[in-house]
């Protein structure tokens, strides 16, 4: 896929598969669910072209398990789903976090809860991405707002997943997933591709070394005998209930994300210097916001645009950095307000935070955003 | 697994006390009443001379706690299996 020189029309879901393959993905296990099914269909067709493998499992729980199993076998593996499937995968996602097994999970969000409207866009799974699985755990979740960015963030998701031995989410939505844009896919050698660190053969192998933030990961079949479990485990992966080891393990799992915020948190902003109102957005909604902010600025309104491509870990510091220089933050979301509270936390009362929420299956239009800007500025 | 009771030095029956949970299976399965439970509730060879080396105690121990020394192939296989 990477050898395409000229730009061409790509669907968002298609760009996701292209990004995965460019990142070196060679295994997909999934289950059909609107609006993500194109990802499964393309993975089924494309992966064998580069020696990869595809399997449609009996359900999403099995899919997530197979993704982890394949990664343990040395594959770069991913899966795609939507709300209902994302719910079913949560337990095994938690396993991948605890056992530190690299994998990428794409959630093409649709209107929920429950079956909701399968073909309608929404951004209602933000908190599920953060706390869907039980227990304290860190999360990395990206939210692309264009077809090209879907490609780029998929590559980044695989790279971070391999580097930090952490499952990484891509929170697409039905709009970005199904829309088509003319995009240029970078040439393969323009891309930085990261692979998991491998242990040295002649040394004792610690898959969960307490001295390291992230340990090398040996693949099954490479002759290293060790244990992988979802139980709290010691440095060799064997079960332990020792409270000191438990604290060290869970703290390390959190630390390995917190120490890389710089690299993980990606944002875009313009018109911030004189902004008395900043619109904070992500995903498909950011497309309408971009248009609305441009229209507002053309009418001489001091409005800033702040978009985050990284939902988790949330860009608290970046937001609090400009919060005291502006009066109002407007947070449009296609849900009842899921990053709204996070923005408030980042702002610490230094500015007013106003929501603009649609949860009826329709996009928030630029005019609606402009209307709200005029109302609250 | 049966062996002809030939005249030979008695089989060496080793019991790893820290692994034995006193379940009594070896005692129940020994066809020559060689084994019994001691005061601590651990298996031991009460009549080692009666042992015919049938190896049932070793195979039917759920905790790998009893093994037959002097049983040449058994000894090799035991070490191979346990200590790998």
């Amino acid at each position, binding site marked *: 896929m990477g050898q395409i020189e000229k730009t061409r029309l790509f669907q968002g879901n298609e760009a996701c598969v292209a990004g995965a393959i460019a990142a070196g993905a*060679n*295994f997909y*296990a999934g289950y059909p669910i609107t609006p993500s099914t194109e990802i499964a269909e393309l993975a089924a067709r494309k992966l*064998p*072209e*580069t020696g990869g*493998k595809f*399997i449609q*499992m*009996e*359900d999403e*729980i*099995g*899919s997530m*398990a*197979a*993704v*982890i*199993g*394949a*990664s*343990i*076998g*040395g*594959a770069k*593996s991913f899966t795609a789903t939507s709300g209902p499937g994302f719910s079913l995968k949560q337990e*095994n996602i938690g*396993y991948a976090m605890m056992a530190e097994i690299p994998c990428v999970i794409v959630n093409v969000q649709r209107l929920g809860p429950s079956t909701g409207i399968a073909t309608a866009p929404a951004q209602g799974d933000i908190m599920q991405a953060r706390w869907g699985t039980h227990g304290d755990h860190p999360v990395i979740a990206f939210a692309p707002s264009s077809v090209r960015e879907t490609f780029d963030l998929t590559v980044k998701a695989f790279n971070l997943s391999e580097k930090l031995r952490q499952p990484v989410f891509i929170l697409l939505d039905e709009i970005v997933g199904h829309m088509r844009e003319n995009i240029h896919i970078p040439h393969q050698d323009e891309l930085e591709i990261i692979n998991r660190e491998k242990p040295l053969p002649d040394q004792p192998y610690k898959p969960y070394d307490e001295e390291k933030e992230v340990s090398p990961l040996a*693949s*099954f*079949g*490479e*002759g*290293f*005998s*060790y*244990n*992988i*479990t*979802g139980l709290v485990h010691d440095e060799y992966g*064997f*079960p332990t209930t020792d409270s000191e080891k438990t604290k060290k393990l869970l703290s390390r799992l959190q630390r390995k994300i917190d120490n890389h915020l710089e690299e993980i948190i990606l944002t875009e902003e313009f018109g911030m210097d004189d902004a008395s109102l900043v619109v904070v957005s992500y995903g498909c909604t950011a497309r309408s916001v971009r248009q609305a902010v441009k229209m507002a600025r053309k009418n001489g309104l001091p409005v800033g645009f702040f978009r985050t491509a990284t939902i988790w870990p949330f860009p608290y510091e970046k937001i609090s950095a400009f919060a005291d220089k502006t009066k109002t933050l407007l947070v449009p979301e296609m849900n009842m307000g899921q990053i709204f509270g996070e923005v408030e936390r980042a702002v610490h009362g230094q500015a007013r935070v106003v929501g603009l929420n649609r949860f009826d299956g329709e996009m928030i239009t630029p005019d609606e955003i402009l209307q709200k800007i005029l109302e609250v500025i | *697994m049966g062996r002809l009771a030939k005249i030979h030095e008695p089989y060496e029956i080793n019991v790893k006390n820290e692994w034995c*949970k*006193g*379940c*009594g*299976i070896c005692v*129940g*399965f020994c066809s020559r009443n060689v084994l019994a439970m001691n005061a601590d509730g651990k298996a031991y060879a009460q009549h080692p001379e009666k042992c015919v080396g049938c190896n049932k105690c070793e*195979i*039917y*121990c*759920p*905790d*790998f706690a009893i093994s037959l020394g002097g049983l040449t192939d058994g000894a090799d*296989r035991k070490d*191979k*299996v346990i200590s*790998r």
Partner: protein
Amino acid sequence: MWCSGCGNGLVTGSLLRAIENLDIDTSKIAIVSGIGCSSRAAGYLNFQTLHTTHGRALAFATGLKMVRPELTIFVIMGDGDAMAIGGNHFIHASRRNIDLNAIIFNNNIYGMTGGQASPLTPQGEKATTAPYGAERNFDIMKVAVATGATFAARATTYHLPLLDKLIEKGVKNKGFSVVEALTYCPVGYGKLNKKGDATAMLNWYKENSIPVEKCTTVDHEGKITVGIHHHQAAPEFVEEYTRRTQGVKR
């Protein structure tokens, strides 16, 4: 970690003897287990061991087998692990005939959590969640054969030499091989149903089992049939997938 007299150690011993007799290069062996008493065996074994989530061992193993077909993979599960919560993955691994060796430690209950009923608790028997007698149970051999497994065999912890052989034969079968090892739970199931101690339960197996080959002639109602219940080769899933996607070009 198993209770005194628990049969899980016996099945584990049988698995180890089978592995040794097959003389497989240990770097080519992986043990994938679910959650429950028997699945903790993985933590005691010096191979590449993967202790997964409850009911999902076969799905994890499917992903591993697809990318590492050269591995001999044993999937250790309990009866509830494999046939209750794991039922959907069991029937599809069986349908696919993927080369995995499912070793089901069937102790007729959920042991780890203290003896609750499972789909394999004999109807009418007692369990902590079936104080008035368990509901209808099914037969793993029938489910395995009906869903496509190409090798299905059963033994009990009394029939250990047979169990060793069945595991070995299962490994040699290129496809989904199910070996059900009936292993009593003396603490949960045994006490509640007054089956006596471990030795008594082993002898109960001896008295109440019958070689499956003999079943046609003799009425075996209520008896445990042991031996190979089904063995018929069929194309193996990963080999088929690899063959069909061979030479696929961009």
